[in-house]
């Protein structure tokens, strides 16, 4: 009997988050035995990933595809071809299809989506900021977002702004694009604090941005302690920073679990078992959606799923 063969289509293989997902995929394969997995590098490029799906269909070597989509809408047509060709398809990180918030399959034949609705996370983050800002008037907030041109970042940003809006004391004084790079965030935040020296909270969708923010604050001689810093991703570096009391909180992220559950589900499906079509790793993790120092201190054995 032939082994089950799965392809993992990373958004980019040279990226810590995707690397953790890949490790999850490998772990699930090892656990099941007789499963072979391969990784493909999407180079953060939608067309590349699309071509990879086509090549995989043409090659006929695989039973299933796990995709971390670079372009959640465009890839749908290629994946539809894949399901038609009899391949099992799982999507991680984001759902595939026109809507980023619809977790049930939007592509006919798609087996499972292992992801969290980005609006839920963004709302949770914004709520933490609202909590922090209680009793502060004005409460000056800077939003550091990845890149507004990315549909998911755009969605997150809108959600954050909409959630904060009803609270009159909260003022979003500036928005910076961090591009998931500490360097870009450093530059943007340095400039922002020139114009807005008094800042109470920084609301960021990614921990990498906070690394830049921290340096900028240090550099400007502004004490970090009173400022509320919340990021996203829950990587090892951030866990340390929260424990040290530098960052305040982060939105949890489970890249390894995403890969693990996606692979596990496909293997089960291949073996004919019934499987769910939507898994939210944050639910299964039993950790709070937003992780802070108090929780980390209470759970000293917690290990982040990725390094950074």
């Amino acid at each position: 009997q032939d082994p089950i063969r799965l392809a993992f289509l990373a958004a980019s293989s040279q990226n810590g988050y995707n690397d953790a997902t890949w490790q999850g995929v490998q772990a699930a394969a090892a656990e099941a035995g007789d499963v072979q997995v391969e990784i493909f590098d999407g180079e953060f490029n939608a067309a590349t990933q699309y071509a990879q799906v086509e090549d995989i269909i043409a090659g006929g070597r695989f039973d299933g595809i796990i995709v971390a989509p670079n372009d959640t809408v465009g890839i749908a047509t290629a994946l539809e071809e894949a399901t038609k060709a009899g391949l099992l398809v799982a999507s991680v990180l984001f759902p595939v299809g026109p809507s980023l918030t619809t977790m049930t399959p939007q592509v006919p034949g798609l087996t499972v989506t292992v992801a969290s609705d980005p609006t839920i996370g963004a709302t949770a983050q914004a709520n933490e900021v609202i909590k922090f800002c209680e009793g502060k008037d004005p409460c000056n907030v800077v939003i550091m977002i990845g890149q507004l041109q990315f549909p998911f970042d755009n969605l997150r940003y809108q959600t954050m702004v909409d959630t904060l809006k009803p609270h009159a004391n909260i003022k979003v004084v500036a928005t910076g694009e961090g591009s998931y790079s500490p360097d870009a965030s450093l530059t943007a935040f340095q400039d922002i604090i020139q114009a807005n020296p008094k800042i109470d909270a920084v609301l960021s969708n990614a921990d990498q941005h906070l690394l830049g923010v921290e340096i900028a604050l240090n550099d400007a001689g502004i004490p970090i302690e009173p400022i509320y810093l919340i990021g996203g991703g829950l990587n090892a570096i951030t866990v340390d920073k929260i424990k040290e009391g530098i960052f305040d909180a982060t939105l949890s992220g489970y890249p390894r679990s995403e890969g693990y559950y996606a692979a596990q589900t496909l293997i089960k499906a291949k073996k004919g078992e019934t499987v769910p079509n939507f898994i939210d790793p944050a639910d299964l993790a039993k950790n709070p959606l937003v992780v802070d120092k108090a929780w980390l201190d209470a759970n000293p054995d917690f290990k982040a799923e990725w390094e950074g």
Partner: protein
Amino acid sequence: MTDATAKAPMARQRRGWSIADIVREYGVLLIIVLLLVVLTLLSDSFLTPRNLLNILNQSTPLFIVSCALTLVIIGGGFDLSTGAIFGVAAVSAAWIALNVDPYLAMVAAPLIGIVLGTINGVIITAFNVHSFLVTLATSLVYRGMAILVTNGKLIPVRIDEFAWLGRQKLDLGGGVAVNVAVIVMLVFMALIMFILNRTTLGRAIYAVGGNEEAALLSGIRTNLVKIITFAFSGGAAGLAGVITVSRLSMGEPQAGTGLEFEAIAAVILGGTSIMGGAGAIWRSMAGVLLLALIGNGFNILNVNPFFKDLTTGVIIVLAVALAAAGNRR
């Protein structure tokens, strides 16, 4: 460098039309053949009609853009705005297909590309500034427009007629089916080849790139010729854009990012001179094919993707070294 003579240095010593010469002239082709052989030996699924057609089909946008870019580069220019024009065309086509008519979208996208390319050409010739800087600037402007107009959002187009261009296949019999897009690409390529080799415009393009002053003094409308090359390049980017939108059923303002560099790399890898005045379409096609084969090989074989950039780089250096092997004094 104002001195045209400096562009064409006195020829160094050369041997006869020997193996060395053939290697120098057709180095890329040799590398392609080598790669074909290696990939065929390494994987059963490589040398199948389906895979080969897939490679062609996937590279259609790059083929089209590189083809027209070759005109620009032979004409002594550089076009960094093709990626951005691709983006503008992509969102415009998606919007038109959704709101007006899917077939109109297929015609409008290349036209929009031609307009934007013409704007490039007019700025370059009116201000007499190097196209590198101008197209760098306009690429920012065009991309910015695409993002602003769409508010950074995707435009999904799930219309069957519209998918025709990108996804429809024509059966050639014998179980072999070719994508409409591939046929469009081949027709476009033939057109550009014809223009370059058989028309007065083609002649003028070579002359403008080889020695602009001499071309001017021969009564050639050098500015017009340059503008035309940029219009072609823009039009090609628009065409490539609409094919991609049709294939993905979605227009996004970020589409085509980096396409300009891939196209430039392909053209120069093929052996067209970056200094202008010399080159050929087949060379650019060979360049695209080489890059496409490397990518396909990586996808088909089970190689660690970490090695891909490195391998691509090494293969390019090899191609360069091979072509240079004939160049020895």
